[in-house]
Every structure is written in C-alpha cells, then in structure tokens.
C-alpha cells in the first residue's frame, strides 16, 4: 500500500469526508509532506471503492456543486490496521538495526 493510499484510509477512519476534505486531512496527517493532487486522489478513490475498502456515504449539493462523501468500510479498517502493523514491524526492525550501529560509524 502506498503512503497516499494509507493516509486516505486513515483520513476516512474518523468520519466520512469529501474530496477536498480528504486532501486537507491527508496534508494534516503528513504534516504537509503529502499534497494530494486531484488525479492521485480520484485514482485512489476509484481503486479503493473497487476493492471495497471505502464506499460512498452520501452526497450533497453545496452552492450547486456536487460533494460526495466517502467512508471507510469494515474491510477498509481491517486493511488499514494490517498495513499499520506491517509498517510498525518494519519500522521497529529498522530501529533495532540502527541501534546496533557502532558508535562513531565506519571510516
């Protein structure tokens, strides 16, 4: 799972969000590191919907514009949890290796 996808799923965990809301929450979660462009966002939303990880919650019209809200499905929450566990394991293994680095480094 790529980082933008992980962050999109994470951003939908708390509450359903529309496209612009997802862009904002992903920017917040990544401390501004990941800035989703519409092409990336909607490509990911299409794939995640097909995979059943997210689904349409509801739609609304604001000032004549369509807003579609997405929510995380049960499968999506499970996939997000599994991915977080996997990354956690890798991170901890990497951290352990870093601690084993000899003091002063190599010549």
């Amino acid at each position, binding site marked *: 799972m790529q980082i933008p996808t992980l962050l999109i799923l994470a951003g939908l965990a708390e509450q359903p969000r*529309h*496209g*612009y809301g997802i*862009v904002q929450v992903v920017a917040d979660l990544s401390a501004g590191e990941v800035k989703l*462009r*519409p*092409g*990336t*966002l*909607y*490509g990911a*939303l*299409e*794939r995640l*919907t*097909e*995979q059943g990880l997210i*689904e*349409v919650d*509801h*739609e*609304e*019209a604001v000032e004549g*514009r*369509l*807003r*579609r809200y997405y929510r995380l499905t049960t499968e999506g929450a499970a996939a997000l949890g599994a991915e977080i566990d996997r990354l956690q394991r890798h991170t901890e293994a990497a951290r352990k290796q870093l601690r084993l680095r000899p003091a002063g480094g190599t010549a």
Partner: protein
Amino acid sequence: MSDEARQVRRYRLLLLAYPGRFRRRRGTEMITTMLELGEPSRSDAWHLIASGVRERFRLPSGRPFTVVGALLVTLALGMFGAAAGSWLGSPGLPARSEVMHLVNPAVSNPMASFSHRTSWSGRADSLNFTLAPKAQQPSWTVEDARTGLIAAGWTITEFTADPRPASITCTTDDICTFDSSSATVLAERDGLVLSGTATDFLADKTGTAWIGGLTGSVVVGRGAVYLPLTIAGGLLGALTGWLLTAAFAYRIRSRPLAAVFTGVAMTVAAPPVWALIVNAVMLGQHLSGTGLVYTLHAALLPDSHLDGVPAWLIPACAIAAAAIAIGVLVLSTDREDLPGATRPT
C-alpha cells in the same frame, strides 16, 4: 463568462483525458474538488492529464482473469494489426501481361510464355512462368537469359551456375533424360523479385533436344515501408486491444452474456492468431534471405500453411471472431453509474 464558469470549462477539457466511464462517475465531484483547491498550476494540469491517460490503461482491481484476458486480447489485436500493416505495405502483383512483358526478354524470340498466378497462404502472390525459345537455338545458354534480363532492365542479384556437366541418359526403351546445364537466377526490378532456373540447349546425336530457357516465378518484394508498417500496425493493434479490454472490462462484468461472447470470440480467434504467429516466425526467418517472400497477412488466406487445417478454417474463424467481437461491443455500450450513490436534491 464568469471566472468560475471559465475554470469549470477548463477542468472539463482536462478531464477528457479520462475514460468516459470515469468522467460520468466522478467528473462532477472532481470539478467541485478542483474548484475548492484553487487554480491548478501547469504541472497540476499535466498531472491530471497523465492520471487520466493512466486510468484509461488501468484494469479493474482484484480480477486476475481480466489481466489474462487483456493480455490475450492485446496479443490477438496486435497480430491482426500487424496483418493489417502488412497488407497496407504490400503492393499487389501487377497484371500477368505486364509481368510477362518484363520477363519475356530473358529469351529471345520465345516460343511459349506459359504463366499462372498463385496465391500461397503465408506468402506473397506469385506469377509462375516458363519461357523457351521458339525454335531450336543450339547456341542458347543460361548466359543468354542473364544478358536478356539485364537488357530488359533487371538487376541480377544472384547468378549461380550448376557445375555439373550436362548429360543425356537413355534407357533401353529409348526414353532419354536430358540433364542440361543450369543456373540459379535471382533478379530485381521496380520492386519485383524474379527467382528461377535457366537451362542450356542440349541435343543428342539424333537431333532430339532439350530446348532450354528460363522457368521461375515473380513476386512483389517487400518494400522499405513493409516492416515499419507491419510493426506499427502490430503496436497500434496491441494498444487498441489493451485499451478496449480496460474500457469494456467494467461494462461486461454486469453483463454475463457479453462476457460469454467475449470468451467465444477469443476462442474462435485462436486459429487465425496462431496462423499469424507461425507466419511471423517464418517471416523473421526469411527476412534477409532470397527466394520465398513471406507476407504476414497472407496467413489469413484460405488453404492454410498449418498442417492438417481445413482450407476454410483460418479465414472463416477470422471473420467469425470479428463479427462476434463487434456483437460484444454493441452489447456493452450502455452506461453505468456508481452503485450506492444517491443523487443530490
């Protein structure tokens, strides 16, 4: 026109990079999001276009059979595309009289210029001919054929004389076999390729003679555009195959009949696709050689070059597969909306 209307118009143009299915499902909400994000930079615009093009190539997620299907359709349309390119790059054989007008000078005062046109599956059409001097010309040799062809404008690309001495072998029943000196002749002129065998005049003591002459065939050689057109046709066909599968994979999943017919079309297309692959291998093996001229599209002609295949099978399967494929396209032309979504009020 207001700024927002102008922006919406620009976004709609950019969204044309996406497949229609995607635009119908997500176009409106994408425009909403883009308006909220503010004016896109040039880089954002290119990124949107690239994302749209990538979406056109994307197959539905989590469906391995679709990937296999896409590869098979890509292969099939790639081969048919290459065959179309081959056909475009192969000028037809000129009329028989025109060809014989060019070949006849190989023999001065020819007695007979027997010729017939032949269509071989897998190969370029050829005109087979036999030329012999009208009257016995004891001095006639294979060199005369070479001289005559050069005088008629042919370029001799190979002239190999058989080193065997001429001989006449007679049985006790006075049936004699004339084994005349011969030479292999290859010549080219205006895109035509002549390949044949010239033989010397040979007579026994009684005056019975092998009159000699030139026998062979003329085909249209592969021109400079043949391979580029064939390769371009193959690439275009393969690209079309993948894009069609990506587009129709979404449509036929809710139409079992269309899915069944797609499978039938692929099955029926298998023999002609295999015939084209075999011919592509033969073409590759004879690319630099002389003599036989293989043309890819000719694999679809009746009387297949494949062993044990009925004459009608390859062209019939090609036509049937095309007809069924068109049927599948017609069956799958309806539009679909995002399931579970409710319309704004």
